[in-house]
């Protein structure tokens, strides 16, 4: 019907599949993210380190070039530590991106009372959370495990199948370590923004959880002469898990299994907080 005709007519055409509707939210939210020039610039900066790693991998396999430059050919070693550093650096960028974009995903909907409009449609709360978290999950994937695995494949193709076969576990570590970090960051950012409803405060709170959490952990450890304070330090827990996944030697005060459990508990708490707030209307009992 042409737009100049003002008579209302019901829609009688085909509908899209129900499962595909959470991607509608993803599409609109992602489009909004990249309207910010600062965000776009930061996203580009996130690829600098993987690019540097790519050059290092190339150099490591270019012995003639290193000889010409007068450098020892064994200077660069592409191993588990190399990929551990890559994921650690990209993890920091992932945190910065989350602090910048995460709080803006849900808080505007809550602040403007838009949730009833989402949930009065054939669209559930779970689909809403899935659609919104997909924005962060995919954004953070693009700067963590995706470049990590691409670099692994490039290294494998240059080093040969025997290297690839021996170090295949590193690919798994890249994927798992990135996914748990993405899950923690996404859920934490969305839970905070759902409870605070104010984008800037939610961003500040995310930084506070990370940095004050570490300080709080140190204070508990010092006062109570224990190591249990580390359970309040998300970065420490993450570091423990990553060290174990990449088999990097490091002294950690809490067992890896407990660190895993603590991270999963944090994820569950964030998800619970999120689902409690993401409702059409709050019920006041």
């Amino acid at each position, binding site marked *: *019907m042409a*737009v*100049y*005709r*003002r*008579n*209302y*007519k*019901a*829609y*009688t*055409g*085909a*509908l*899209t599949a*129900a499962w595909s*509707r959470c991607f*509608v*939210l993803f599409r*609109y939210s992602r489009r*909004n993210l990249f309207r910010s020039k600062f965000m776009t610039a930061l996203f580009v900066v996130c690829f600098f380190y993987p690019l540097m790693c790519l050059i290092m991998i190339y150099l490591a396999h270019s012995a003639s070039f290193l000889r010409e430059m007068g450098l020892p050919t064994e200077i660069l070693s592409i191993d588990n530590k190399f990929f551990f550093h890559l994921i650690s650096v990209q993890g920091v960028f992932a945190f910065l991106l989350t602090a910048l974009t995460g709080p803006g995903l849900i808080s*505007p*909907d809550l602040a*403007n*009372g*838009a*949730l*009833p*409009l*989402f*949930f*009065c*449609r*054939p*669209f*559930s709360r779970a689909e809403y959370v899935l659609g919104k978290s997909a924005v962060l999950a995919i954004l953070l994937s693009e700067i963590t495990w995706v470049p990590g695995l691409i670099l692994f494949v490039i290294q494998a193709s240059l080093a040969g199948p025997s290297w690839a076969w021996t170090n295949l576990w590193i690919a798994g570590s890249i994927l798992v370590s990135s996914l748990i970090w993405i899950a923690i960051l996404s859920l934490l950012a969305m839970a905070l923004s759902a409870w605070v409803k104010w984008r800037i405060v939610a961003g500040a709170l995310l930084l506070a959880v990370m940095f004050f959490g570490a300080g709080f952990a140190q204070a508990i450890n010092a006062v109570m002469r224990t190591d249990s304070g580390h359970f309040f330090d998300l970065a420490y827990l993450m570091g423990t898990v990553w060290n174990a996944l990449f088999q990097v030697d490091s002294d950690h005060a809490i067992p890896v299994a407990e660190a895993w459990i603590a991270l999963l508990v944090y994820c569950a708490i964030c998800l619970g907080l999120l689902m409690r707030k993401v*409702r*059409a*209307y709050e*019920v*006041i*009992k």
Partner: protein
Amino acid sequence: MITATQPGAADGERTQTPPAAPLAPLVEMQGLSVQFGKREVLRGLTASLRGRSIGLLGPNGAGKSTLINTLLGFYKSSAGTARVFGYDVGTEIRKIRGLVGYMPENDAFISKMSAVSFVQMMGELSGLPKDMALERAHEALFYVGLAEARYRQLGTYSLGMKQLAKLAQAIVHGPKLLILDEPTNGLDPSARQRMIRMIKDIRDGKEMRIVLCSHLLRDVEDTCDEVLILKQGRIAHYSNLDEERRANKRFLELETYGANGDFTEAIEKLGCECAVIANRMKMILADGIETRDIFRIAAEQKVRIRRMNFRRDTLEDIFLKAMES
């Protein structure tokens, strides 16, 4: 006021149409109760709403919005069942939501989005393909009168424009039922008239059925053919407005001169119910009593009747009766 002798003559009254075939039940409730903590907000509602346009009335806190939110699946019932278009609210809410367009009472929008993007997104979430959602978003915004402002951010809209944008998102996907929660809230008289005109237009288009929740009797009277009045979470009254008015043909208004308590007493002795305000008198004629009996008593009492007219119940009368019951 709509008189018995001049149906449809009042301002804003619909044109008379021949009686249509009865509509399928829109909402059926069987002992529906909703409880928030220990507070029971809806108490055992049982009704079958069939009208094309149903008004939900009641004082603040009567449970109107709670009923709407329960029908949309936002609140769970603590007892009883409700069905919309035959689908159970508890188990088939997704099907119900696919058939419903909802315009909430409070501000509900995303301030940084343009109206056309917002309405398009809502259309897509209802299942419209992307291109079709865009086309219908333009149509819906044209229809509600926001054509010129459709590329502006919603945060810059006036209250009246936000209400229209909410209406546009509610109709973009072509629902079978349009639920309007206080659609004229905060609107100035001209914007209110425009909104009422639009609701009437939608109702008369017969593509959609309407549930309109309001505490403004005039809005409901102007747009609805059935009314459900809630009071303290219970159904105080449910009726078809036209039938209700027809049933009150024996409601009489008199303007008298020289009437005293004896005149009223004499009329009450005939079995009529009377209410006197200054020189005006309202009465409900008892069965078998005609106007000539009133004239006879007036002549006997030397009371002059300056004006006499039959009066149908206005919605206000119906509402007040329901509140008093």
